[in-house]
């Protein structure tokens, strides 16, 4: 198993190198001038020339890439053309907010999607199944943008049940930063007021972000479970006199878990990098907004940094999912 993990980690390094090369070439192929983007419409030609010189944009593309890779190997992702801050410090500021939102969204999606999928499969063709399938259809078809505005208007503005945009209340002082995750940092600071405030602020955006995933998990769980329930070994288990809950818990769910796990892995990756709409509506200071602004303003080092982090997140999640296969299905070996 250790050999397998080491081999995968080595492969991950190769994948990430490919990601840097691809992102570098694509971002430099655009017919735009990053100096003009960073300095604005009013900037004079001399200012643009000075900017290009200072940021090494005049150098040949290959030289720029070698310099970038040299910095990267030393743990330096370069400096943002737009904010003139280190990319590492930018990512440290924005990534934890997205990670926290995504983790809670995935928890919500699991809490909603898995039970609904199981219920739908067990009561196939009956009202609970119909309700679950309606949820899956609506959750999958409703645009995140619309759902976010609806949730904000209804639960914050009209009913006042949940707080509005942002990670914390305007009057809450953020806890000292250790992990960047408000829930963890507030607990480390023994600040329960901020913890609850942070948790309340997470509910709406996480529900909105997790809605599509919950719908997808409902459908996947339902179909995977239905397929397993029609297998001979389930019939055998039933005929042996096992209780329905034991049949479901010991034989059906475990075997239906593999396709659900695959979907969950790719969902986590896509949520992590695709939360931009939710982040925008809920004024969430995450990586989505940072990536969008950086891409629009041709901030190549920032785009590279975000791409690398996204690639890393996908690779790690994929590895974890592959390892989890072994847990659910002992026939899978990691030789």
């Amino acid at each position, binding site marked *: 198993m250790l050999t397998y993990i080491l081999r995968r980690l080595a492969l991950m390094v190769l994948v990430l190198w490919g990601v840097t090369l691809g992102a570098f070439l694509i971002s430099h192929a655009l*017919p735009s001038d990053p100096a003009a983007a960073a300095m604005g419409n*009013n900037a004079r030609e001399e*200012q643009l020339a000075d900017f290009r010189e200072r940021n090494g944009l005049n150098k040949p593309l290959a030289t720029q890439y070698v310099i970038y890779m040299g910095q990267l190997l030393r743990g330096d992702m370069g400096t943002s053309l737009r904010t003139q801050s280190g990319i590492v410090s930018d990512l440290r500021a924005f990534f934890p907010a997205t990670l926290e939102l995504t983790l809670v969204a995935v928890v919500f999606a699991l809490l909603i999607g898995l039970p609904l999928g199981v219920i739908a499969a067990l009561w196939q063709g009956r009202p609970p199944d119909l309700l679950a399938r309606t949820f899956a259809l609506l959750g999958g078809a409703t645009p995140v943008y619309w759902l976010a505005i609806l949730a*904000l*208007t209804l639960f914050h503005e009209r009913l006042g049940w949940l707080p509005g945009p942002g990670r914390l209340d305007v009057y809450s002082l953020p806890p000292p930063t250790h992990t960047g995750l408000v829930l963890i940092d507030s607990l480390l600071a023994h600040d329960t007021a901020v913890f609850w405030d942070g948790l309340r602020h997470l509910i709406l955006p996480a529900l909105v972000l997790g809605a599509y995933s919950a719908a997808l998990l409902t459908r996947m769980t339902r179909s995977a479970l239905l397929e397993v329930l029609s297998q001979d070994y389930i019939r055998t288990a039933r005929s042996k006199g096992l209780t329905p809950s034991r049949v479901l818990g010991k034989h059906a769910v475990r075997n239906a878990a593999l396709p659900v796990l695959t979907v969950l892995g790719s969902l986590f990756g896509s949520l992590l990098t695709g939360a931009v709409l939710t982040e925008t509506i809920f004024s969430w200071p995450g990586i989505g907004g940072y990536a969008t602004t950086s891409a629009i303003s041709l901030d190549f080092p920032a785009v590279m940094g975000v791409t690398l982090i996204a690639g890393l997140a996908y690779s790690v999640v994929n590895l974890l999912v592959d390892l989890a296969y072994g847990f659910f299905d002992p026939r899978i070996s990691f030789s």
Partner: protein
Amino acid sequence: MSQQAVSARKRQMFSWGLALALSAGLSLASAQRESTLVIGGDFSDLITLDPGASYEFSGSLVAGNLYDTLVIYEGNDLKTLKPRLASSWTVTPTASGSRITFKLRDAKFSTGRTVTAADVIYSLTRVIALKTPSSFLLTDVANITAKSLSAPDAKTVVMDIPKTANPNIVLALLTFNVAGVIDSTEAKAHEKAGDFGTAWLKDHSAGSGPFMLNRWDRSAQVALDVNPNAFRKSPNIKRVILRYMAESAAQQSSLNSGEIDVAWNYTPDAFKAAQSNPKLRALKAETFSLSYLGMNSAKGSPFEDARVREAVRYAIDQDGMIDSLLQGLGRKTQTIVPIGLAGSDPKIYYPYNIARAKELLKAAGKANGFSVDFLVSTGSCSGGVPCQDLAAKVQSDLAKIGIKANIKQMVNSELYTTYRAQKATLIQADWSPDYPDADGNGTPLSDYAAKSLAWRNSWNNAAAGKLAQTAAIESNAAKRLAQYGQLTALLAKDGPFAILYQPYKPIVTQTGIQGFNRNANGDVQFEKISKK
């Protein structure tokens, strides 16, 4: 007293104590809310809070409240200079140009140190040395160097400017945050590798303004606390929070729920709804921006002939654009100097007239019209209207005279790269002057040699260039006005622009917010605001 009575008494005391503590806590929270101003808006352009480096609207908004400049324009009067750190100043002619002598008032930084002439000189010279995005205002417009500045004593600053610069323009640009005065001792203490403290000043403050920075949580909020040492006292507001809210929908929701006091970026539709809401106050803040069409006049371009450019100006339905699309969030103007600046011309040269436009096209040999690529931003245009909606209106107006404008949407970076390379035949864009003076538009829009908008549209008119250069350095106000009158008339007749509108900035506040004013420069004096 029985044991039970003692217990009951203890419980009662505890309940009173708890109630007292809770009410004290609530009244403290209430007092905190009453003295805190919360502004929700799109502040994503905020990059640095260093006054010498910040060149974005949000940066200027914050820096203007953290730092003082020598002189300032107060409120909406952007024609009369007022003292700020300088209690007085004199302009005297010299052999090489002119000399401005400033006398400093008694003032202290938030650090407790006294503001001195050395601080002023350090603040200006560091901008020149750092070559910040706004440094060209000092080097290229004011034409000053480090050698131009001297301090005969701790309360006097002398600035020598050459003949190539107009002292009135120099004074006007000294109101901008690029000339904000920082505590040099504090900045030097945080210098790293000769950066004049700019890395530290990015998210710290060391000014004498009415507020000082508490903290800036990037993409979340900026919190400013009142500066106890400031001479501009803020009697009511003790804390200002700029809350990042990019979306108008989020701002509406938060304003309606009372979470924020001011919404900074409403869309025209949302603004119209707010105007009829008795719980809100809708303000149309003036701006110096101009939304315009740029027509490339290069040889071979369909806009080479001045009559075609005139035809476009006749064909644009400005009233329809302002009333329907912008919901009134724009003003009709047709010349290159925006309304509100000395030198602007309110005359309507081109009343909407399709027949006249067609005549002009016919006279130019294009009776059947022509087809042209129309470059448009993918984002939001000034006045809060989506650029694609504005482009569709222009496209429909031009179609009426036979011009087929093929809309090509681009992100701003690509759009302006194309424009800068003189490759945009027809473009929809915005322009704001760098400083509140007619020259902020006069030179870039008229002088081909300035390599700005006139150059980007391949419009090379020697008379216009000469007029712009002369007016820029003219110190006689009456003569200067006459020169800008000539220049604006020339541009209106022959220039490569069709002005679409001068936008208002829509701002919505709770009715309890008093004294909120955003001037055309984008400045808001937080210390003048109160909250009920």
